[in-house]
């Protein structure tokens, strides 16, 4: 089932250089990346123009928009666990992911018809439900389709394509509005079409895998999914480390706002800072994924938080110019590249066979909840200590947490290296 775009691997051929990037990753992973790219173009193009659409075309109140925005962020975390569970239970990750992608595409049909506030809320809720459902089964498929020794790279390639879509979406949307300032419908039609292409590509070109049944030895199907499967000590340790670092991850919004308060350049480019972070993310995704495969995924996951630490530090340093802003965006992008796909790879690696999707979903939910606590807690800290002091406290706490996490993950790295070694030797013997 393992398909390589490169065809046969000439590992033993003398003088054959180790190829880089896309070519050593399963074509199914690349296809899933393309599906994510299309879906992200769709979602992010709509998200980018939503404030304009709500305020200028619908004439809705701005407070109402804040409400929509909060909803947008919150809904997907709730259903993520459900998506992971359904995927493992049915042993059909492709079709659960398909349902999630299809739901988001269908939501965009409603967007063409929605004229009021309530209708818009319904559309956004359904779109986010789709995202929540599909994430874990999709990541489980990537795990199933990947060679365990380069799982980090597989996720790197997927996240790179995914983030290219997220960076392209707003640009396409604003290009359309540049040509037709009132062309919101055109943006929605384009979003619907790209989402539909994503669903078509997934449905027709991605093979239907049944990880649990395929893992069966001598026709004996492994026990069906149970929550108990998630009590693997390595998975629990991973969740603890991810949760510890997550409660100190206060979000890009804070970094952007701090930069905006300090320089005219940042204020002028404020609406586009997140595009800069996305560009850095997709540039670093594959190299960091490879690094994770080489050095140990848990190690790169923890070290990635050093980039976040430096970005926080940059917001309190006494100097701030264009170079500082660019450095901050690069650091945030590096942080996502070293942690987002790598965490999914780690969860996929440690979750028992047949529980991959729930393992990934549970880990991602721990991080999402931890970050929610972080942003709320930071608000309180800002209130009591002021911006600069609050940032200093979080920076110091994160420094300490990284040190603790570096110790806690030691067993995880050994496990990772051992597994990769076992895989390599198995491969060598064939």
């Amino acid at each position, binding site marked *: 089932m393992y398909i390589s775009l490169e065809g046969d691997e000439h590992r033993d051929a003398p003088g054959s250089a180790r190829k880089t990037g896309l070519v050593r990753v399963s074509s199914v992973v690349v296809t899933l990346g393309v599906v994510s790219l299309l879906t992200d173009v769709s979602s*992010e193009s709509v*998200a*980018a123009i939503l*404030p*304009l659409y709500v*305020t200028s*075309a619908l*004439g809705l*109140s*701005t*407070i*109402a*928009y*804040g*409400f929509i*925005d909060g909803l947008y*962020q919150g809904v997907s975390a709730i259903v993520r666990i459900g998506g992971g569970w359904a995927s493992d239970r049915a042993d059909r990750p492709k079709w659960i992911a398909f349902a999630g992608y299809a739901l988001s595409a269908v939501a965009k049909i409603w967007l063409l018809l929605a004229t009021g*506030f309530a209708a818009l809320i319904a559309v956004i809720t359904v779109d986010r439900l789709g995202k929540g459902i599909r994430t874990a089964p999709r990541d489980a498929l990537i795990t199933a389709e990947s060679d365990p020794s380069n799982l980090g790279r597989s996720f790197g390639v997927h996240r790179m394509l995914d983030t290219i879509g997220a960076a392209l979406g707003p*640009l396409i949307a*604003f290009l*359309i509005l*540049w*040509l*037709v*300032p*009132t*062309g*919101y419908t*055109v943006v929605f*039609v*384009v979003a619907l*079409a*790209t989402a*539909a*292409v994503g669903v*078509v*590509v997934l449905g*027709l*070109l991605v093979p239907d895998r049944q990880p649990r049944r395929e893992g069966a030895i001598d026709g004996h199907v492994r026990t069906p999914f149970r929550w108990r499967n998630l009590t693997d000590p390595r998975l629990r340790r991973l969740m603890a480390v991810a949760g510890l670092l997550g409660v100190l991850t206060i979000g*890009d*919004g*804070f970094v*952007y*706002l701090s930069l*905006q*308060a300090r320089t*005219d350049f940042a*204020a*002028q*480019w*404020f*609406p*586009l*800072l*997140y*595009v800069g972070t996305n560009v850095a993310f997709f540039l670093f995704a594959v190299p960091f994924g490879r690094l994770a495969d080489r050095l140990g995924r848990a190690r790169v996951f923890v070290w990635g938080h050093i980039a976040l630490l430096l970005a926080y530090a940059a917001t309190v340093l006494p100097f701030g110019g264009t170079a500082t802003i660019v450095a901050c965006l690069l650091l945030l992008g590096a942080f996502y590249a070293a942690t987002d796909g790598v965490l999914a790879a780690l969860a996929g690696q440690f979750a028992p066979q047949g529980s991959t999707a729930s393992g990934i979903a549970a880990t991602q939910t721990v991080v999402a909840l931890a970050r929610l606590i972080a*942003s709320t807690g930071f*608000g309180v800290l*800002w*209130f009591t200590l002021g911006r600069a002091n609050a940032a200093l406290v979080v920076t110091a706490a994160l420094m300490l947490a990284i040190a603790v996490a570096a110790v806690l993950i030691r067993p995880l790295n050994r496990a990772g290296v051992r597994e990769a070694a076992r895989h390599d030797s198995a491969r060598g013997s064939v």
Partner: protein
Amino acid sequence: MSPRARLVLAGILTLLLLGGASAYGVVEIAAYRSRLAAPSQVRTTGTAPDTANQARIVFRNTATGAGYGRVASVPIARPGGTRTVTDLTCDRVYETVSRTMCLRIDRGIVTTFSATLLDKAGVVQRSWGLPGIPSRTRIAPDSSLVAFTSFVTGTSYATVGFSTATFIASVDGRDYGNLESFALTVEGRPVTSLDRNFWGVTFTADDNIFYATAASGGRTWLVRGDLAARTLTSLRQGAECPSISPDGSRIAYKKNVSTSAIAYWSIAVLNLKTGEEAVLPEKRNVDDQVLWLDDSTILYGLPTADQPGDSDIWAIPSDGSTGARPFIEHAWSPSVVRP
């Protein structure tokens, strides 16, 4: 289905979907171009030199056709008459005898937002980048100070939610900064919470005193600002986007009359001497910073029904005696200029 057949089918469907969307886009672009090239649906003229010294209403022209989105003016005596359309494009505009503030969406593949101050001849004096979609702007009666409000948008990953940024600056180069850096006092207590937001400044005849809206914890207040002391003090809860009358005796604002989480605004007028508030008989939802045409009439914009991107300016007596009448059709963001 064989893998090859699947690939072919996927290719055909992709071409159909993307081709269909592109075709729709091209048709819409062509339709927009032809609308733009068509003569305006209202009577317009280029800059006529004699209008510059007339008492006039300056506004954003939203009439379909040539001149859409441009700054235009009509004589106060003949608001329905031929409009003089300039070359300046703004999403929100405010003009006095000597200065123009222009808030704009600078469209492009990378879309940004800006505020520009121009002099009488249309020469740019100052400009600022905005952190999001333009909202409100005002110039002090003596043209010495400007204020502008924008939303803070574009943080896709952020969890900041709704927020606004409001700045005050002098025309000769001084920046007073974001109102968030002013000390806010509500009902006698200092408010320093993170979710403070400010919008909709109105200047008084005294250059040191202004009014604005403050918000925190889901509540809003009308606040009185002191520029030298850098303080904001609450006067009344539930009053947004204030606008002071030319004689300085009353403040008109939008008042949230909704009983649900979704806001619905009416126009109210507060008498500063007596503290009496009168809600005007306008049943539609008014989301604008209203403007005093004179000491007895209030102007405001309302979106035109079923016509995205178009709006009309309405006039209503400030004493609440009668309902609104249309004042200038296909127009937005009015200001009164009396040379």
